[in-house]
């Protein structure tokens, strides 16, 4: 048997990863979950390496998660909030990429409000690039941390039935999760009003429901999506009240799922909009805090794979 090798220079999306790639990341991340629970959390794998968090869109959770992950591996971590500075002055994304590239980073973690922007940036730099969310396209580390969370609890991904509920139309989390779960052999459903589903969504290999009762029936995992405030009042759904009534997760709807069904949410939550507080805080059913824990571990695994090898670092000519 040939030895497994993670053959990707960047992590731009789940699309393009094989089941072996995904399992390998999750296996590595499992080890980091254990490390992170110890008092001494640091190793020196990325000592001397530089990680730049380059966020063209606001983020606290994801940026912090990457920062913690980088520091625990011994890397120097720099945070850049770009939306306020250079883009306003008319600097293009490619200019920013070239500028950062000249500083010889080893990993760029990039979030951008436009789909495809992280890929464009990755084509212009010599270091590894991790997509921390691009528009409505992909958010691969979120899907990997969700998968790790599920696998640690259920012992597997294949054969499970997962309902992804809410604003699938605008959600990069949904796209990455659908890609990951389907390639790993899970059955995926999407549940949402028609205004929040993209065209031809069934072509992604999911079953489509517009009714929570039918959509949650006998599922193992209920994955709720965040509804952005600007979409709550009339543009995509008429009101938060009506949305919660039909599509918000509470115990009434949850009891249609399997008795041991678990609840997930990528955060930050809108309590009382897509998810009720009593469900979100249910210590037996809700995996939300485990997701955050898995996030750091998965990001450490990704950093190890992309920045850990000296060969993955072509010199700047």
């Amino acid at each position, binding site marked *: 048997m040939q030895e497994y090798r993670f053959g990707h220079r960047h992590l731009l999306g789940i699309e393009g990863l094989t089941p072996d790639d995904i399992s390998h990341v999750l296996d590595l991340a499992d080890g980091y979950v254990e490390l992170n629970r110890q008092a001494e959390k640091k190793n020196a794998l990325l000592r001397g390496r530089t990680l730049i968090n380059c966020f063209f869109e606001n983020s606290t959770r994801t940026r912090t998660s990457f920062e913690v992950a980088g520091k625990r591996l011994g890397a120097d971590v720099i945070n850049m909030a770009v939306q306020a500075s250079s883009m306003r002055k008319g600097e293009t994304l490619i200019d920013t990429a070239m500028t950062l590239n000249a500083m010889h980073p080893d990993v760029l973690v990039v979030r951008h409000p*436009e789909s*495809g922007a992280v890929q464009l940036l990755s084509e212009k730099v010599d270091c590894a690039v991790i997509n921390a969310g691009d*528009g409505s396209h*992909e958010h691969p580390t979120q899907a990997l941390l969700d998968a790790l969370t599920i696998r640690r609890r259920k012992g597997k991904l294949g054969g499970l039935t997962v309902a992804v509920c809410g604003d699938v139309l605008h959600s990069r989390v949904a796209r990455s999760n659908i890609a990951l779960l389907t390639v790993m052999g899970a059955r995926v459903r999407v549940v949402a009003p028609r205004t929040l589903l993209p065209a031809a*969504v069934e072509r992604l290999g999911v079953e489509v429901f517009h009714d929570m009762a039918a959509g949650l029936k006998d599922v193992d995992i209920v994955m709720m999506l965040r509804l952005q405030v600007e979409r709550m009042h009339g543009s995509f759904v008429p009101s938060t009240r009506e949305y919660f009534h039909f599509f918000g997760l509470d115990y009434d709807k949850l009891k249609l799922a399997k008795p041991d069904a678990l609840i997930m949410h990528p955060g930050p939550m809108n309590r009382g909009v897509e998810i009720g507080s009593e469900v979100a805080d249910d210590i037996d059913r809700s995996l939300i805090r485990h997701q955050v824990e898995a996030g750091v571990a998965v990001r450490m695994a990704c950093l190890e794979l992309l920045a850990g090898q000296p060969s993955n670092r072509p010199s700047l000519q």
Partner: protein
Amino acid sequence: MTAARRLIRNARLIDPDSGLDAAGDLLIEGDRIAAIGPGLADAGFAENTEIIDAGGLCLAPGLVDMRVQLREPGAEHMESIESAGHAAAAGGVTTMVALPNTEPPVDDVSVVEFVARRAREARLAKLHTYAAATKGLKGRELTEMGLLAANGALGFTDGVQPIADALVMRRVLAYARSFDQLVIQHPEEPSLGGAGEVTEGEIATRLGLPAVTPMAEIIMIERDLRLVEITGARFHIAHVSTAGGIDAIRRAKAAGLPVTCDTAPPYFALNETAIGDYRTFAKLSPPLRSEADRRAVVAGIADGTIDAIASDHAPWDQDSKRLPFSSAACGIVGLETLLPLSLELYHNRHLELIEVLRRLTINPARILGLDVGRLVPGSPADLVLFDPDMPWRIDTERFRSKSKNAPFDGRPVQGHAVQTIVDGRTIFIRQG
């Protein structure tokens, strides 16, 4: 110094208007066609006459490209009237009509005159311009259509913007009819379009791009056809790209409405898969469509519902295209690929060669009311000598256009212009 008399001999003469497709010669005197037919060379015309041996290549009326964006005035670094003229010449285009979306826009007589003067100075392909239908292309107040038309504007359009408000559109059509002017519409209902530059469907969904339903085009076409019904104005729909839109036009024509339409090569040569991984060179407005729509465009061209093929030339510099997909500009350069891409319809056996040329010459000339596009004695000697079969690969770096934004780079095609003649003067000869 151009000879007063030029004889092109040994050509395959193709004139879609008369149906002529035969070996023969063509005599130019000054800026006009003096005679056509077989054996002119044997009848004693050779005295004091420049002889051009066509070597059996096709000689047709020069192409009439009814939809071209110039960037002069305003953004000459992307395209000037002169650089567009060279690109047109190399593409076999002898007449082009510019959209009014320059800076300032062509909504005032002085800008019409400026464009005409710059074209006269360039002395390349003939250039006409449409004028804005509404002031500043803003879709609210009518422009001085009568005065603009009297000073040479060929028709009225808001260019790449639809005239969205139904009442304004009704008045544009009604007022234009008073002067028997053509109105040209970019058919897209903007309130359905949102920020969409890709067609709704699996590809847009996978890429996570804001998408627009093809109904946005169909709805606007159907609305406008109803307004044409009550105003009777001559109406032309630009770059149709959907099966539903073409059906609506087909029905309107059958009902006798004064409507015509064109499409552009990307809509029959490509489908939405050309976007691949966010290729901004394949970002167009209207967006590339499904394979079913592409086939409907081919069928619409073949059955004559689509009257004309225009390049939809839209030059953009690198800075406008090397951006995330949603921020990138829409459109591609097309003057130099109009002929070879249109010839694909012939090589793929969808149309006879003469029928392809009809949609590139006499049909647009008629729609625009221009006295070009025919091979008849007395007509302007605007001609293209071309090889319909010559295989080559599109190389955008060799474009004469200042902008290189085209998704066709590297595409193997057949056929190109060998010599382009305007008013009897050769403005382009292919070297080597």
